[in-house]
Structure formats: structure tokens, C-alpha cells
């Protein structure tokens, strides 16, 4: 692994200590320029990578036991190109900082899994290669899942190859629901009614925890109520998180905790990891969680095997509330010295058998429509509700690198936490969040 990031590591050594900002800037520019402009990315049927090695970053935990997949991938890639792979797993918690640091430090890998919300940010910074042409040349442009393409498109260029998609719905304990005589709710009123029944039947459990340190739980309710996070006006964005519709959604969501007592004060500082912890301890009746979680939950607590179900997040009066269509792109980094080889790897990972294997093992949905269709046809109780959610109600966050800053500042989580802890009303907290977003949008 020490070989990676050759651009930054070798070329800039002459920048001696003490030459000041100018030398740093020149050195950075030099290494960006060299590797960026030197090589045009091309699609080829065969790339020889004999004696070469690519470094690859993959998020940790997406696939609970990823080692067999990595072995298969290494073998397949070696067979195809003769090149070796150096695969490293990156914990999500550190991933954003780690990417930022590696981009800033010129130590990026050749290929990496990039969370869809980060792709515009890194593309805007000039760190990712434009894949539009090679995707066309490879004849893949019609087959990619549209939501993921949108999320990876900046100024008309596609900077991330859709790899897999995931969506959040409600994950619940089938045994607990059954005992309380509750069936999956299909509207907001039913959700509350179900909650009341569950709470009465299981006073020791947390009926529906509302985590204060996770933004993804509130989006479906904002969208479900007809609100938006932000709207694009020409070149700029304006926050709409304080619109009456959005506020209605936020109120409903936070009232599940404050009004109905379905949550616990502890959840006010929980993130999604804490939420999963609580669920796998058996403390939770239902929660908003991703399509990728059921497998991990059973792994953490085998007693839950067969007791986990899922249902789409209901709309206010039936239907499905849109949920954030998350997932990951595969990106080729500009600083890579073997971009053709890197693209060959991306193709291998994102299409065909390897993509199929990944989605089977990880519980995520594949990024190509042909494979997605295959998954939808299977009728798995913890898969098909998510597929329904994804097809009927998949939504994306504002596609602008500035939204990455909003997420970095934790604007939405801060809003939630202040409402949940009783520090601010929905109106105050949402208008403050809107101000904060607008401030970030305006300086961009």
C-alpha cells in the first residue's frame, strides 16, 4: 500500500522546508497538473497491467464478510489485465475526512468507492476523472440506475460509476409486531396507532427511536409532507427546510419522540450506529434503517434470525414517502497514473458477475438496471420492501458540492438534536438550519 499516491509523494520532495506558501502552492499545482493532464482516459477492451498494481478503497462493513469477494476480484482482475490489487477497507465514520486528506495530500488511491453525496464535492475539487466518454464507449450509458447517475453528474459530466444503491425504509421486529397484533402501517396515522399499541404491549422496548445525530431519518418525512430540502434557482440553491410543508414533516418525525414517547432521551445523541446497536440488543421495535442493515443486525445478534422484517416508509395518507437513494459510485482519481487500468477495474466491479456477487453479499441493490431487475424478481421479505421503496420513492439530496459542506457542518442533525432535546421549537430550529444552509450556498 505504500506505493500509492505516487504523484504527491515523489514529485514534491524538492519543496524544501521553509520556502513558504508559494512553494507549497506550486508543488500542489504541479502534482495536480502533471497527473491530470498527462493521460487521456480511454476505454479499451484489453488493458495490460502486467507488473502494475492498483490501490483500491472500499468502505468497510458494506459487505459484512468481504474477504472472499476481494479474493475473487483480485483473481478476476489478474486474469483480465495481469495487474495486482491492493484493497483497503475504510470505515465510514472516517471516510470523508480521509478522502479530503488524501485529496489534499495527493495520496489518493487509483480507484475508490465514493459515497454518492461526496462525488460532486470531490469532482468539483478536480480530484475525480470524468467518466462520461468511457461510459458511452463501453455502451453502459443506458443501463445505469438514473438516481445514481443524477447524483454523480456535475456540470454535465459523470464522475462516478454507479456501483450499488441502498435506501432506507422501516426495519421492524416481526415477532414483536405479531405479539402486539400490529401490522405494518401504511399511513402516518397508522404509524402512530401502531406505535401506541406496541408501546403499550412492550413498555421496556423503544418503540421507534428518533436518533438526533442522523439526518437520514428526517428526510422521508420532509419529502413525504411535500417539502424539499433545497431548491435550485439558476446557479444557486436556496434552502426550503423551513417551508410549512417541511416543518410539518419535521414536526411529525420529532413528535414521535416528544409527543408520543416512542423514543428515548438517549436517542437524542444517537447516530445510526447507536441505533443499530440498540436494535441488535433487542431493545427496539422498529426503526428507520437501510436495506443493508438486516444482514448486519442478524450477524451482531443471531437470536434475531427470522425476526426481522421491513416495510416502506408510509406516506401521510397512504403510498410511500420518498427516502434518500443512497449508495456508492466507483470513482477513478485524477492523480492515478494508470487511469485506463483503473477504468478497467471499475467496469469489472460495476457490471456483470462481480457486481452481482457484491450485491448478493452486501444486501445492496446493483447500480445497473439489468441487474436490478433480476433482484426485484426475487421475493425476499427483507429485500422486496426496500426495492419497492427504491422504485416508488427514491429521492436525492441537492446535487451540489455545497451540500457536502452542509453535511460536514451537521446542519440537519444539529436541527434535529436541538428539537429533540427541547432547546428549540421546530420553527426556530428549521429556520436556523435554513439560514445556515443558505449561508453555505451563498458563499459557493
Amino acid at each position, binding site marked *: 500500500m505504500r506505493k500509492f499516491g505516487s504523484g504527491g509523494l515523489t514529485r514534491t520532495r524538492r519543496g524544501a522546508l521553509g520556502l513558504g506558501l508559494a512553494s507549497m502552492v*506550486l508543488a500542489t499545482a504541479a502534482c495536480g497538473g502533471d497527473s491530470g493532464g498527462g493521460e487521456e482516459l480511454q476505454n479499451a477492451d484489453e488493458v495490460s497491467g502486467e507488473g502494475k498494481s492498483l490501490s483500491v478503497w472500499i468502505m468497510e462493513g458494506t459487505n459484512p464478510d468481504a474477504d472472499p469477494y476481494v479474493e475473487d476480484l483480485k483473481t478476476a482482475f489478474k486474469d483480465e489485465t495481469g495487474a495486482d490489487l491492493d484493497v483497503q477497507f475504510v470505515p465510514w465514520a472516517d471516510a470523508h475526512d480521509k478522502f479530503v486528506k488524501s485529496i489534499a495530500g495527493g495520496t489518493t488511491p487509483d480507484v475508490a468507492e465514493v459515497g454518492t453525496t461526496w462525488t460532486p464535492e470531490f469532482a468539483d475539487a478536480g480530484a475525480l476523472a470524468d467518466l462520461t466518454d468511457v461510459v458511452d464507449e463501453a455502451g453502459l450509458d443506458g443501463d445505469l440506475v438514473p438516481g445514481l447517475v443524477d447524483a454523480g453528474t456535475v456540470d454535465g459530466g459523470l464522475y462516478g460509476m454507479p456501483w450499488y444503491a441502498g435506501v432506507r425504509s422501516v426495519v421492524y421486529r416481526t415477532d414483536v409486531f405479531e405479539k402486539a397484533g400490529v401490522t405494518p402501517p401504511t399511513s402516518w396515522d397508522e404509524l402512530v396507532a401502531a406505535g401506541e399499541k406496541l408501546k403499550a404491549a412492550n413498555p421496556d422496548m423503544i418503540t421507534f427511536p428518533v436518533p438526533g445525530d442522523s439526518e437520514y431519518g428526517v428526510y422521508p418525512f420532509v419529502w413525504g409532507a411535500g417539502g424539499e430540502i433545497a431548491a435550485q434557482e439558476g446557479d444557486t440553491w436556496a434552502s426550503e427546510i423551513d417551508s410549512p410543508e417541511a416543518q410539518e414533516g419535521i414536526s411529525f418525525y420529532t413528535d414521535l419522540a416528544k409527543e408520543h414517547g416512542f423514543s428515548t432521551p438517549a436517542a437524542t445523541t444517537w447516530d445510526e450506529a447507536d441505533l443499530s446497536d440498540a436494535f441488535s440488543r433487542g431493545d427496539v421495535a422498529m426503526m428507520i434503517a437501510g436495506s443493508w442493515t438486516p444482514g448486519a443486525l442478524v450477524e451482531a445478534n443471531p437470536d434475531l434470525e427470522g425476526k426481522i422484517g421491513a416495510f416502506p416508509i408510509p406516506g401521510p395518507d397512504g403510498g410511500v414517502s420518498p427516502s434518500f437513494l443512497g449508495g456508492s459510485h466507483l470513482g477513478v482519481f485524477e492523480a492515478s497514473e494508470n487511469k485506463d487500468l483503473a477504468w478497467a477495474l471499475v467496469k469489472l466491479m460495476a457490471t456483470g458477475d462481480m457486481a452481482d456477487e457484491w450485491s448478493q453479499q452486501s444486501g445492496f441493490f446493483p447500480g445497473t438496471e439489468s441487474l436490478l431487475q433480476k433482484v426485484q424478481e426475487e421475493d425476499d421479505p427483507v429485500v422486496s420492501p426496500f426495492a419497492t421503496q427504491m422504485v416508488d420513492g427514491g429521492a436525492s439530496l441537492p446535487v451540489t458540492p455545497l451540500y457536502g459542506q452542509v453535511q460536514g457542518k451537521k446542519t440537519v442533525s444539529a436541527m434535529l438534536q436541538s428539537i429533540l432535546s427541547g432547546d428549540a421549537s421546530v420553527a426556530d430550529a428549521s429556520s436556523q438550519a435554513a439560514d445556515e444552509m443558505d449561508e453555505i450556498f451563498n458563499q459557493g
Partner: protein
Amino acid sequence: MTTSPDVQPGVAVTESRQTPAAPSGPAAPGGRPSRRDRAGNGLTPGWLPWLLQAPALVVLFGLLVYPLVRVAVLSFQDFGLRELVTGESSWVGLDNFTEVLTDPLLWKVALPNTAVFAAVNVFLTVAVGTAVALLLAKLGPWARGILTSAIMVAWAMPAVTGTYVWVYLFDARDGFVMQTLGSLGLVDPETTNWFTERLPFFAIATANVVHHGFPFVAVTILAGLMTVPKEMLEAAALDGAGAWRRFRYVTMPLLKPVFAVVTILSTIWDFKVFTQIYLMPGGSGTNREVLNLGTWSYITAISQNRYGLGAAIAVLLTLLLLVITAVYLRTLFKQEEL
């Protein structure tokens, strides 16, 4: 900062010891360089001292002084991820400082959280440390050995680990403290989350910081207590002075420089406290009420990629600490030379 409480005692210890001795010449045998050194003597050429300290000075200038200048430069620029990659950067004059200084977050949250927290923690750390030192001085050799080992262990636990343990202890639903108090009926675990409110949040952080910081104070002051001549204390006892009076009128004045040093060093560390806040629930930005200057600067720069603005916050924190440094220097070196 993770490192500081563990590290800096070295300075404190010797420095403190020197202060009382040095001004009065004869008490510092050999400490005062004789005159012929001024130009170097026949055996030691004049360039020798520079040769000896050159490596250390290079490291200090390269890694502390120069980066500090760079922070100052960055604070006048609009510098983000894009600028870092492309190499462009633009001067924005005082914009970053204007933004920080007009942000109510600074005056209502970050500054009080930094200053008040530091004041409380310094007081508690020094008080607890002194009490423990006095206790240690009274114990027999066996008990003292055991207790010193125990406080060394508290000192040895890394700040990262320590923070996780304290968070773990006070965890809102199944933390040990919450469960114990809950089973005694003192708090209701179903309605309490200590991490969401500013005061309990910082109370827990205080327990953590004091736990990590008092051993240094205790060991330093104990070392100081050893140097207090027994005869003076005995004489005071014969004059009828009780334990408190002996401490107040004999020990305290003698150890004044030691107290000054531990107080000022603790102040500096507690102003700079970062890890202990950042790793607590909500400390990394979700709970705006608990930001301090250190975490605010780090989050602005690293999580939001606004390096220029983050640098401006860092510059303010540095200036604040330089004022304290000045006090430190004045306290220690009022009448004597370095």
C-alpha cells in the same frame, strides 16, 4: 489536546525548582555561567553552542514556528479543498476574522465554553492534585507506593481511551452511572440524557479532564513537598501552628513557584482541550452548544474544508494563549534572568 497533560510536566518540574534558587546566586551552585564563557574559552569555541542547539532549533523552527506563521497566513485567505488541489488561493483580508468575531457562536458558546471550562478545570485539577499530594506525603511507604502506582495508572490511560470510558460510564440508557443512580431512584433513565445539555456535558468532560490531569499536579507538588525542610515545619509546630497554618504559612510560600507553574500549565492544557470534547456524543458538531475553540476550529477546517476560517479561529485561540504565556513569563521571571 491529547498529548499535553501527559507531557509538559518536565518543564514545570525543573523550572519551578529553579526559580526560588536562582535569584540569590549562591543557592545555585554552578548554575550561573562564569564570565569567560561569554566569548567562549580556549577549550570551547564560540560556535560550539550554536552547533549543539542547531538540530533542536531547526526542528522547532520548522515544525512549530514556521507552521504557526502559516496558520496566520491562511487565516487571511479563502482556502478550501479546491484551492488545496488546484493551488489557487485568494486573499480575503480580514473577512475570516470578521466572520468569526461577528458570529454569536463565538461569544455565546465557544469562548465561554473554552474559558469557563478551563478556569473550573484548572481550579479542580490543582485542588485535587494538591490534596492528593498532601495525603501521599502523610502515608506510610507501602500505602504511598500503592497509591502512587494507582494515580500513575490514571495518568497513563490515554485521553482517547479515558474519554471513551467516561462516555461509556455516563451513557444515557445503559451506562453504569445511569443504571446505578437509576436503580437508587435518583434519576429516571427514561427521561435523562446528560450529553444533550451543556452543563452536564461539561461536568462529565470535567471529571474526565481532572481524572487525567490531577496525577501530574499531585506528583509535582509531592516532589515539591519533599524539598520543604523538615526543621521549618517542626519549628512552626513548636510555635503552636496547626496543620492548616503550617501548610498556609510555611509550605505554600516555599512552593509558590511550583503552584504557579502547575496552575499555568494546567490553564494552557485546559484551554487547548480537544480530544475530550470532540469524542463525546454531540461533541463533533451536532450539538452546537458544546463547541469550544479547539473543536470549532477543527470542524470548520477539516469537516467543512474551510481551512482559512478554521485558521482564523486557531489564531484567536493562539493569541489568547499567548496572553497567558506572557502572564506565565512575568510570574516566573519577574526579577531574574532566564
